[in-house]
């Protein structure tokens, strides 16, 4: 098939643009908090104007990100955001961060290749076919990020299956920089050379395997699960923050949109479900779900897969980038707030992510019990 075939939909382009715009704004606001002290040190002894310059550039980039999120008519602001971030980096090298580099690349890619007219927030017209070049480039971008990361690790003496970096993270870095509970039991575990070395290999093999699995329709579902587990674990332990959400955002470029292939049946006797069903079209940014009235909650994937009860709603939510943005907001917003009442913010995040993982796992188990395998496992998700 030609890489320029019209095998994508407006709903796909629109939802990717919309969710990336929100992530860009969240990410830049997050960095403002993260860099407060770093830029205070950088600005010490400089004139007021010079010390304020990186802040102005970051403010400009944040404003550009907001405009980019508004509509495709503002696509030039996506390019402006990238340029302003590059300028901030040249003015104050301490502002360089891989997360922002990846963000700038993805925003510029969206500004250049997304093919939908008007605002990404408007509705209707989602099923219209458009070129799939944009999604393919996002897929390549993710693959480059994964493979590039492995290439660097493979040439580094403290990776290469030694577990050196992992031990250092568990024993030195994380206890000093982060709160939370996860490292308290991970640290003694990963202090063992053998375990750290094994995890080193697992991470490197995983980072190669995930883009390969995602590229294959047969293995895609497993690749998505493996990627979510990897990034969820890294987020809970090391808090890569924006990087986690950008990579998971990219996974939406691997699945279709605008197909209404899934059917969510909701219980007409439940007032809560009636309200949820009324709201669902606003949450279903990728137009994947057709709603149907019934006497119990259930989600059918159109090829034999079926989730029931609470799991149906969880799985339906996973199909929308709104869920990703909700977790991203929890983790990225107001980074200067490090405590929530008597608890550390990291601990609260870990408990919430853990609860999400348990619910998802329970949903998967339930699904496995009732799922009948499709005759053709290569069918798109």
């Amino acid at each position, binding site marked *: 098939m030609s890489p320029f075939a019209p095998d994508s939909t407006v709903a796909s382009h629109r939802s990717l643009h919309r969710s990336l715009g929100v992530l860009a704004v969240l990410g830049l606001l997050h960095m403002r908090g993260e860099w407060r002290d770093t830029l205070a040190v950088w600005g010490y002894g400089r004139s007021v104007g010079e010390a304020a310059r990186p802040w102005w550039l970051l403010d400009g980039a944040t404003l550009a990100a907001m405009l980019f999120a508004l509509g495709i008519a503002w696509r030039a602001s996506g390019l402006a955001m990238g340029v302003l971030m590059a300028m901030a980096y040249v003015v104050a*090298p301490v502002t*360089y*961060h*891989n997360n922002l580099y990846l963000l700038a690349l993805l925003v510029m890619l969206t500004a250049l290749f997304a093919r939908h007219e008007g605002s990404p927030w408007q509705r209707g017209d989602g099923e219209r076919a458009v070129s799939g070049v944009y999604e393919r480039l996002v897929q390549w971008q993710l693959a480059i990020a994964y493979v590039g990361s492995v*290439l*660097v690790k493979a040439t*580094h003496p403290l990776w290469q299956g030694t577990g050196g970096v992992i031990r250092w993270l568990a024993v030195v870095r994380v206890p000093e920089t982060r709160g939370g509970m996860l490292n308290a039991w991970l640290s003694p575990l990963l202090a063992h050379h053998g375990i750290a070395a094994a995890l080193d290999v697992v991470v490197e093999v995983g980072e190669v395997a995930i883009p390969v699995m995602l590229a294959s329709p047969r293995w895609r579902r497993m690749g998505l699960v493996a990627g979510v587990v990897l990034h969820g674990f890294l987020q809970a332990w090391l808090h890569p923050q924006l990087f986690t959400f950008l990579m998971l955002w990219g996974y939406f470029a691997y699945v279709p949109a605008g197909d209404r292939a899934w059917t969510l049946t909701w219980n007409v006797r439940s007032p809560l479900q009636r309200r949820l069903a009324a709201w669902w079209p606003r949450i279903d940014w990728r137009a994947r779900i057709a709603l149907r009235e019934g006497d119990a909650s259930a989600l059918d994937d159109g090829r034999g897969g079926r989730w029931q009860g609470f799991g149906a709603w969880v799985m339906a939510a996973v199909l929308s980038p709104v869920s990703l943005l909700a977790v991203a907001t929890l983790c990225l917003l107001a980074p200067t707030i490090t405590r929530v009442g008597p608890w550390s913010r990291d601990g609260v995040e870990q408990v919430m992510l853990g609860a999400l993982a348990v619910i998802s796992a329970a949903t998967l188990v339930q699904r496995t019990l009732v799922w009948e395998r499709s005759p053709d496992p290569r069918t798109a998700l």
Partner: protein
Amino acid sequence: MELQQCTRIPRVRIRARCDTVASVDASSRATVAALVWLAVQFAVPALRLDPTQRPPFSPRFSWSMFAGRPLATCSHELRWITRDGAPTTLPLPPHGHAARRVLSARTPDEFRRVVPLLSAYADDDRAMISSLDDLLRRYRATVDPHGAHTLASTLDCRTARGEVLRRTLRLEAR
């Protein structure tokens, strides 16, 4: 009837040919754009790979969160010396300013905690040292614009691979 068919066929062909040309043009543009895209995204990492580059391009490939050399364990000695050669109290930045935490850090534990303030993304040891030197020069110019004192900084580091690194910076009194 036959005449109509004869006139229709060339028209259809012409239209088909035109459509194909337009499609090739769009494909070529997209291919060129994709190639430029690849070149742009590798330009910065390539520049950062060069160890001879001065900041802002530090010698680290961009596509890796944790592949950089873990920062060395360092202790920092900072001395403020009068023209007579007598050590005196360091005039630190005001309380609450992040630069005060950096300049007060002495032991390896204290110094490791302030390293992210010198190099937010913890590029590598060299980037951190370069950032510290830069801060010390600005600090000296701020608190002692006439250069009445000597500022002597000694950083003793041991990298995670066991390499010993000693860097000294001495800004002499004028």
